[in-house]
């Protein structure tokens, strides 16, 4: 009995404070969580819309698709279908994540309605070196992915950036960041294609 009394006497302030502060955080979170989720959805929608220009709306067709990321890691992502005029399927988009030079790189990747060609990508978040790796956001690098067949991509150090093929010319001084982006594409696209075929959302090409 003495021990319990001693414990309460010593720690009542901590227990009460933890309860009050927890409540304060819970109330703030409840008040702002809708807005925070809305912001994230708006950002994603804007990026997807900028990649798939014919899209009028987006519909989540596969929730939490499992993407093996190597070394036993599994990434989860939602796959969105872009709906064009007349309820036409004009493309698919998904968020893809991979290790960059300094931190994780989070991309939004879009493909056409048959999942045969890439529409391109936009950077959702990255922390690459300013002036070097940060140039993955620039059109000179991103433009190389536009219209490329959805096969395995390869990074080359020199080449023609205007040529649309599976060879992606690395950014000078930022080979690691360029390779990271291409690796993200290669990790995701095969599995995304397989899952879309499995769901009957694209033809299986046979």
């Amino acid at each position: 009995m003495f021990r319990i009394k001693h414990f309460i006497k010593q720690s009542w302030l901590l227990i009460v404070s933890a309860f009050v502060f927890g409540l304060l955080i819970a109330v703030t979170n409840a008040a702002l969580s809708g807005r925070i989720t809305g912001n994230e959805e708006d950002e994603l929608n804007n990026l997807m819309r900028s990649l798939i220009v014919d899209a009028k709306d987006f519909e989540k067709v596969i929730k939490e698709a499992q993407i093996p990321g190597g070394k036993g890691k599994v990434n989860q992502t939602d796959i969105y279908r872009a709906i064009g005029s007349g309820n036409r399927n004009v493309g698919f988009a998904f968020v893809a994540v991979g290790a960059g030079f300094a931190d994780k790189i989070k991309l939004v990747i879009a493909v056409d309605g048959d999942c045969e060609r890439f529409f391109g990508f936009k950077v959702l978040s990255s922390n690459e070196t300013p002036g070097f790796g940060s140039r993955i956001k620039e059109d000179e690098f991103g433009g190389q992915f536009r219209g490329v067949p959805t096969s395995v991509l390869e990074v080359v150090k020199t080449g023609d950036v205007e040529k649309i093929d599976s060879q992606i010319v690395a950014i000078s001084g930022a080979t690691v960041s360029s390779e990271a982006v291409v690796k993200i594409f290669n990790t995701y696209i095969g599995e995304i294609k397989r899952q879309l075929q499995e769901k009957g959302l694209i033809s299986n090409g046979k």
Partner: protein
Amino acid sequence: MANERSNSSAIGQTLIAGLWRENPVFRLLLGMCPTLAVTAAVKPALTMGLCVIFVLLCSNIVVSLMRNLLKPHLRILMFTLTISTFVTIADLFLKAFQPRMSETLGPYVPLIIVNCIIICRAEACASKNGLFISIIDAIGMGIGFTATLCVLAGIRELLSTGAVFEIQILPLGENGGWFTPWAAMSMPVGAFITLGLLLGLVNIISRKKT
């Protein structure tokens, strides 16, 4: 009358201490992590400074109010609990109303929890003084920290992009001007060099004064 004067002088001294004599960055060398990490541009530096002011103010108020109830062996735990609550709230507000800036600052907002300035002021001032002095101390220290971050960020942004607060000041070479952006200034190396030079300058000025 003399008592009133000494009171207002103490308040003035507390407020000014954070700006120069006990400036958290230049004189106490506290809060180095955000000082180096978020000063590549003025906007993130200012946002970080405002977040620190908010957390410092709230934690000083709470710690000062509960100072007579604190058990010596639990005080650091109580400070950390208080600080982490207000940092979480600041982080949620930033995510809700400034999502882009929240993305830019990344983990450095949650890392305010381990910012030594806040725990130092809770220990050195708020746990020993009344509410009014604690508030004044938080404002002084917060403004001192924010101003320092902004000065550092202003220099780095100007040299790395030719702009301050995203307003172009130096004409860029690619637009026919003379200025070539110094990319290194937006990288960690730029942060260390600028901070080192500013620390040297502050030391020279303060040595001349004494």
